[in-house]
């Protein structure tokens, strides 16, 4: 009987542990996630893209637009991928990232860098110049964090995240 009590205690603890793990910050509350996806983290609070550009380099496919779930998740399940293929994903105003897709249940969590205003996959002085020129404007590509207005937050993000995104090898078309 004592082992039964102990077993019940262990089961209860494991259930609590998995519940805590599933609800930690950064993971979508909505439980209906695809089997394979990429989740982007470190997003500005107001940043909520609806589309992502995806390129399958292994097949030299043209870029395709994929819907973004819960502002941060890009599903890989509907992309007709086979292991092992390399794909590149680029969100609006952000640097591109690459993934080596291995199996159907692959899940990735990647920190995103926003600030690429002109879409050249580089965050540099050109983006900063566009932001300063359009300061206080609304509904422009210079609104890096999608807050509705171009302000000092957008300038700060571009300065902090300056750098070069990943490019598909041999892929020279623009994003």
């Amino acid at each position, binding site marked *: 009987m*004592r082992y039964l*009590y*102990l077993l019940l*205690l*262990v089961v209860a*603890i*494991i259930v*609590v*542990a998995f519940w*805590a*793990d599933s609800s*930690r*910050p950064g993971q979508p509350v909505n439980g209906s996630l695809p089997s394979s996806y990429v989740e982007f983290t*470190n*997003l*500005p609070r107001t940043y909520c893209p609806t589309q992502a550009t995806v390129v399958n380099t292994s097949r030299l496919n043209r870029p395709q637009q994929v819907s973004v779930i819960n502002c941060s998740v890009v599903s890989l399940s509907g992309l007709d991928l086979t292991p092992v293929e390399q794909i590149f994903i680029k969100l609006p105003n952000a640097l591109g990232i690459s993934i080596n897709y291995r199996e159907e249940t692959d899940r990735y969590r990647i*920190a995103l860098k926003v600030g690429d205003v002109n879409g050249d996959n580089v965050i540099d002085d050109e983006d*900063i110049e566009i932001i*300063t020129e359009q*300061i*206080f404007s609304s509904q422009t590509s210079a609104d890096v964090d999608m807050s509705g207005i171009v*302000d*000092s*937050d957008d*300038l*700060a*993000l571009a*300065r*902090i995240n*300056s750098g070069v995104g990943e490019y598909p090898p041999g892929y020279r078309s623009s994003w």
Partner: protein
Amino acid sequence: MKGTRVAFVIVSIVTIFLLVGSVVLQRIVFSAAESSSDVYLSPSSFIVQPNGQVDLDIVASFSIPAYIASAQFVVTYDRQRLEYQDIDVSSGFGVEGVDDQSGRTNLLVVPGPAYGIVGEYSGTIRIATLSFKALSAGPVNVELDPRLTRISAIDPEGQYALYNPVISVQNTFGEISTQTSTRLITPPPAGEAIAPSPSLVSTQRIVHSNISALSDQALMIFNLRYIGGIRVDYGTNSQLSNSINTTTTNISHLLRLRNLEENTRYFYRVSVFDADGQTALSWPVRSFTTGELNEEGSIDPRRSELIAVSPVTNRSTLLTFVPRDSEGNLVSPGSVNFRVKEGEASLSLSSSATPTIISLATLINTKQTVVIEAIADDAVVASSSVVFDPSLATEMPPRAERPSQLTFNQNVQMALVFLLMLMLVSALALIRLIRLK
């Protein structure tokens, strides 16, 4: 076997501890300190002669060091009174953009070359100095736009955790006058900054104000950010021996300072209260001068006003028709009529004296905009609009809490209590198992 069983239990308990503990510790966040900042213009008041120069510092004070990546400041002023001349940005900042649009100056700065991408700033610092040329005589407000004045600071523990530490802005009031022999407030020596009066824990502020000085009274309109009350202390000298305060808790307030003398300078100080009666904000002392009544003058539509408070949370409000001639002198209203041009509302005359007081009441319970016109000799001589919005009465100001250096959030406290209880239960179970052997 017994030893094996005990060892198995011990290993299981330790493993569970590590599993649960690692999951719980991932949720632990040590709240890094976030700074709070007051941004204000210094000096808070000034008196200058026409064609004189006015230098105003944009100053920011921080409760604890802030890590700033960029900042924007928007200063508005009456271009009829002031002409923008120049800006001098502090050496601690680099300029990303300066734009003056005749009445509004935008400033965008980043940390100076000595700081790199993000700079640590603390205490009270001068951001920049704006230089203006005084034009025509009269009162002038120089204001920091509370919506667009913003500092982009980062949480040192988080890469993308940008936040705005600005919790209050304070403006400057000045007077351009040929009479500079008497000064109410002595500007501080160059380089010093005046501590702002707004409370660090209140976000109540005056969004808009309008002062109309007539011949025997003054009309003051104040629009607050949240419902609250107003008190005005006034007098002909710095004693400010008279006082008037509003009797309702509202967004917009109209105060009438009555029984004033013609052609007389009056000084006043405005205090703003939260809905719970706590003092939220005090202005520095300001002044206005009453005018004269021109009995023979005719109404000029360009100078006459239909003054209304807006938005209004109550069902009724008062409007004031102030007829003036082309020189700006107060005149008799004559046979002026009033009508509701748009909206569902009713009008009634409360007083036909000068200025004329009109009572306006909304006929519906929902938000609407009512447009009122003053008609004289079949011509519109003044118009105004009033927004009735009962929902604004329920909007309360958020509490701005003082940050602390390092804090355990409530999740951490609950997690530690849970772990301690788990340890206790497991220890008791283990002891019981060993004794039974």
